[in-house]
C-alpha cells in the first residue's frame, strides 16, 4: 500500500484501473471529465489494458458499457448531472437486465439555469432505477467504494449495477492523501469477472424479449429480493475489505458518536465531514449529538436507521436534494422505511440545504442543530420541514 495525493475523480479512475476494467465507454461532462481523461491516459500509456469507447453521447456511453458487460467484459463508465439524465433510459435498462456494471456519479446541479456546483439532485433522480447506490465522504472512501462496487455488483447474490456518488469539485477536484491498495492484493480479492449470463456467441441466448405482465413482475420482484441480499453482501464486503486493506466503514451506514447520542443527525456525502466537525464542537459544549451517515442509499438501510434513531429524542435528516412539491428524498425514504419497524418515530425534522451548490459549513450545521434541540428541550415542536437558505 502506498499513499498518493489524489482528487476524488482520480481516486475513481485509479479504482477502475485497480479493478482491471476491460472496457470503458464515457462522454465528458463537468465535473466528471477528469475521470475519463485519466482513464484514457492509463490506456494510451499502456498502464491499463482496456478498450476505451469514446462515444458520441451519454445515452450511448451506458448503452456501450452495457453491451461490453453483457459480452463478458468488466465495464465502467462515469457521468454527471445532464449526462446522467440523458442516459436515464439506460440506467433502468441495465439493472433490469441484471448486468453487473459500475458507474461513478460526480454530482452536479441540474439546470436550468446552468450551474456546475454540486447538489444531490442528479443522483437522487436515479433512485427508482434498480441500482445499488453508494455515496462517499472523502477521496479515500471514494476509492474504496468504487473498488468494492465491482465486488458487490458481481456477487451472484446481487448481479445488479452499482453507482458510486461523489460531489463534484468538493471531492472530485480536491486533492487528499489516499492509501492506494496493492494491485496484487486487489487481484486476489476481486478475482475474475462474474456475471449471471454472458452473450458472446458461445451459446445462443436471448435477452429482453417481450414478456407478459406476470413474468415481468416476477423479474422485478427478484430485483427487490436481490436488494435485500445486497445488504448482507455490502456488509460482508466491507468487513472483508477491512481485514485485507485495513479500512472498514460500518457497512451501509457510518456511525459517528452515536452510541450515547440523544440527537441523531442523518446525512449523505461530503458535507458529512462538516457535520462531524459541528458534532465535535457541540459535544465539547455538552450536546449529546451523533451522526448516522448514509453510505448506501439503495438498498436503503432501514433496519440500521431504525436501530440508531429508535431511542433518540430527536432526529434531523439533512437533504441536499429536493423533490419539488414534497420534501427531501433521503428524509422521505427514511421515514417510510422506519415504518417497517415501528409506528412511532421520534421528533424528526427534514432540512433541505446546499441546493444549487450553496456552501454549507459546520457553523451552519451547528446553528441548525442548536435551534432544533432548544425547541425540543423547551417543550416545543420543531417544524417537520425546513429549506435552509443562506447567502
Amino acid at each position, binding site marked *: 500500500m502506498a499513499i498518493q495525493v489524489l482528487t476524488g475523480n482520480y481516486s475513481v479512475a485509479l479504482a477502475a484501473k485497480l479493478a482491471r476494467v476491460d472496457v470503458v465507454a464515457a462522454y465528458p461532462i463537468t465535473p466528471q471529465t477528469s475521470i475519463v481523461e485519466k482513464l484514457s491516459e492509463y490506456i494510451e500509456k499502456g498502464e491499463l489494458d482496456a478498450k476505451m469507447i469514446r462515444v458520441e*453521447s451519454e445515452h450511448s456511453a451506458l448503452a456501450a458499457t452495457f*453491451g461490453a458487460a*453483457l459480452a463478458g467484459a468488466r465495464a465502467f463508465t462515469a457521468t454527471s448531472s445532464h449526462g446522467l439524465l440523458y442516459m436515464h433510459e439506460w440506467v433502468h435498462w441495465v439493472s433490469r437486465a441484471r448486468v453487473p456494471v459500475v458507474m461513478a456519479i460526480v454530482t452536479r446541479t441540474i439546470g436550468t439555469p446552468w450551474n456546475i456546483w454540486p447538489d444531490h439532485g442528479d443522483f437522487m433522480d436515479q433512485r427508482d432505477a434498480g441500482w445499488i447506490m453508494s455515496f462517499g465522504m472523502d477521496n479515500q472512501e471514494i476509492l474504496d467504494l468504487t473498488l468494492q462496487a465491482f465486488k458487490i455488483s458481481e456477487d451472484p447474490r446481487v448481479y445488479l449495477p452499482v453507482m458510486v456518488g461523489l460531489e463534484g469539485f468538493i471531492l472530485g477536484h480536491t486533492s487528499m492523501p489516499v492509501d492506494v491498495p496493492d494491485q496484487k492484493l486487489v487481484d486476489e480479492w476481486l478475482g475474475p469477472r462474474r456475471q449471471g449470463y454472458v452473450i458472446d456467441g458461445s451459446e*445462443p441466448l436471448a435477452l429482453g424479449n417481450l414478456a*407478459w405482465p406476470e413474468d415481468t413482475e416476477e423479474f422485478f420482484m427478484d430485483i427487490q429480493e436481490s436488494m435485500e441480499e445486497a445488504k448482507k453482501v455490502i456488509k460482508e464486503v466491507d468487513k472483508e475489505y477491512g481485514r485485507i486493506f485495513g479500512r472498514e466503514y460500518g457497512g451501509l451506514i457510518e456511525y459517528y458518536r452515536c452510541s450515547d447520542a440523544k440527537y441523531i443527525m442523518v446525512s449523505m456525502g461530503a458535507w458529512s465531514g462538516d457535520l462531524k466537525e459541528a458534532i465535535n464542537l457541540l459535544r465539547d459544549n455538552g450536546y449529546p449529538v451523533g451522526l448516522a451517515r448514509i453510505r448506501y442509499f439503495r438498498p436503503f438501510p432501514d433496519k440500521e436507521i431504525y436501530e440508531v434513531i429508535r431511542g433518540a429524542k430527536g432526529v434531523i435528516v439533512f437533504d441536499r436534494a429536493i423533490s419539488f412539491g414534497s420534501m427531501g428524498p433521503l428524509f422521505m425514504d427514511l421515514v417510510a422505511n422506519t415504518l417497517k419497524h415501528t409506528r412511532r418515530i421520534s421528533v424528526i425534522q427534514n432540512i433541505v440545504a446546499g441546493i444549487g451548490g450553496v456552501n454549507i459549513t459546520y457553523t451552519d450545521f451547528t446553528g441548525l442543530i442548536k435551534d432544533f434541540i432548544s425547541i425540543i428541550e423547551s417543550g416545543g415542536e420543531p417544524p417537520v420541514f425546513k429549506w435552509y437558505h443562506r447567502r
Partner: protein
Amino acid sequence: MVEPLHIRMRNTIMSGDAACPGCPIPLGLKVVGAVFGNKVILVIPACCTSVVMGAWPGNGFNGSVIHVAFASAAAVASGIAEALEKRGIRDTQVIAWAGDGGTADIGMASLSGAAERNENFIYIMYDNEAYMNTGIQRSSSTPYGAWTTTTPVIGKREHKKDVARIMIAHGVPYVATASIAYPHDFEAKLRRAAKIRGFKFIHLHAPCPVGWRFDPGLTIKVAKLAVETGMWILYEYYEGRLRLSGPSRPYIDESKRKLIIEYLKLQGRFRRITDKEVLEIETYVKQAWDWVKKHM
C-alpha cells in the same frame, strides 16, 4: 458442397415467430441466419422485430438476440464488439438489426458515432419506410407522397432520407444496399461485409404489406418492382468506388425500367397520389441514378 441458400435459410427463424403474414423481416433474418448460423449476436432496438422475435421464454431466431432501447443499437453493438475483441473472441458476428426509425431518426447519432469510430460490426437497417411497430407513422425514410397515420390526408411532403449515402460520407469501409427480394445478392453482401474489419452498413429494402397497404402475397413482387422501376438501386460501395449490383444493372438504362406507377399502384399508401406527385418522384429517382453513375 454448400447447400443452396433456400435450404440453409431453413430453421434460422423458428416456427411460431410473431410476424404478420407477408412480413419482410423473417425473410431478411433467414439470410442472416443462413450466412452466420448461430454464431451471430443480433442487437435489436425497439421496432417490429422486437415483436417478431416472440415472447419470453421463447425466441424466434436461432442465434443470440439482445433487445435494446430504441436509439441504441449501434452503441450496444459497439460495446459488444469491443468486449469480444478484448476477450479474443473472433468467431462471432455482431449485427445491429434496426428499423428505419431506429436508424434514420432516433438512432442516427449513435449510428454516426459507431461509424465514425469504425466499430467492428455490421449494421443492417431494414427499411419498411415508416414506424410500423407503433402503427405506421412517418419516418424520415418514408418516401414522398406516401400516406402514413401522421401524414394522413395529404401524404408525406419530403423525400426519403438517403442513409446509405450518409454512411458513405462517413468513410466507412463498406456500405451496401440490398432487398429482401434478392436473397442471393444480400447473402453475397453479408459475406463480403463479414470479411472486412470495421464498420459495415447494409440498407435493406423491406416492403411491409400492413403499412404499405398491399396484399401480403405480394411482398416479393413489390420489392422486385422497387428495383425494376429503378426506385431502389442495389449497389456496394467500398474502396472508394460504387459497384452496381447484378439485379440493378439493367436499369442503369432508363428505357429498361418499368414505369414507377406500376410500383406505386400496388400500394394503398399511394392511393391518392396525383400525376404531379408521380412526376416529382420520377425526378427524385433520376437524381438518385445520376448520383450512382457519377460514383461508379
